[in-house]
């Protein structure tokens, strides 16, 4: 499965990559902000995207809105420090399927990824 990780922090991308590796997912591309991600999705065709919210150049919410203009199918998980209910609702309305608040344990992130993929399959 092709997975795209979008976060301006390399540390966070590495942590998420490790969790995905433990779940058996090794085909992973990375992007450092929304603009970088939009430039990559066409050629890479990710089947799952994990996206941070607060990033320079283009934030995660803007990426989600832009991505969803042409892709209503690929599941998106927002992984962010934004925890207020109004933010979660905003992200879901924009088109994310799941939401993980930082900090997170590897188990929690793994659970959310598994849930999201199970819903997609169902």
């Amino acid at each position, binding site marked *: 499965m092709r997975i795209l990780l979008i976060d*301006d*922090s*390399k*540390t966070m991308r*590495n942590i998420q990559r490790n969790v995905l590796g433990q779940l058996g997912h090794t085909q992973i591309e990375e992007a450092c902000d929304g603009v970088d991600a939009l430039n990559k999705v066409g050629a890479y065709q990710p089947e799952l995207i994990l996206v941070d919210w607060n990033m320079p150049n283009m934030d995660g919410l803007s990426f989600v809105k832009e991505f969803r203009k042409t892709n209503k199918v690929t599941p998106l998980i927002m992984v962010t*420090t934004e925890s207020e209910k109004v933010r979660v609702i905003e992200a879901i309305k924009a088109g994310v399927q799941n939401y993980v608040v930082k900090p*997170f344990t590897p188990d929690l992130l793994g659970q959310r990824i598994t849930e999201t993929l199970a819903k997609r399959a169902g």
Partner: protein
Amino acid sequence: MLDPAYVTAFVASLQHVFSTMMQLPVQIGDPKIKSNPAPSYDVSGIIGMSGDITGNVVISFPIATAERIVSLFTGADVKSDNPDFSDAIGELANMISGNAKGMFAGTRRVTISCPSVVIGGGHIITRPKDIPCIEIPATTDCGNLVLEIAIAHCNSDVSAATQSAVSTAQA
């Protein structure tokens, strides 16, 4: 004025982030007003806040402590001259501030900036005028650190970037 609820939120957030990401307990010391603009230690992660609450928050460590904490956080041996070091410090500052914001923002509109990281002694962090800075010392098995909180409720929409600046000066 600095609302004590902000201090409570940042303390809880610091402990939550360190415990969740690194399984590292944090013992909190007695808060005090910080009058000296020089940070306590040589590595500082800085986050600005803007909107209904403005100011900045700094997490500061001695270099050796920061290296131990970053190694725990990343799972790799990362020294302070590695670019991944400042990235990790910035991400820790981001999580601590973001988490705290979630606890006290409520209906207020608050934005946090992308983190800045300064490495090296002698740097000075300027803070918004008229906003007191509360210094919260803490200890961990990796060493000491300090959280410096200079934020206050504000009705004007002033960008955090225009309110705070970091300058370096040789000690």
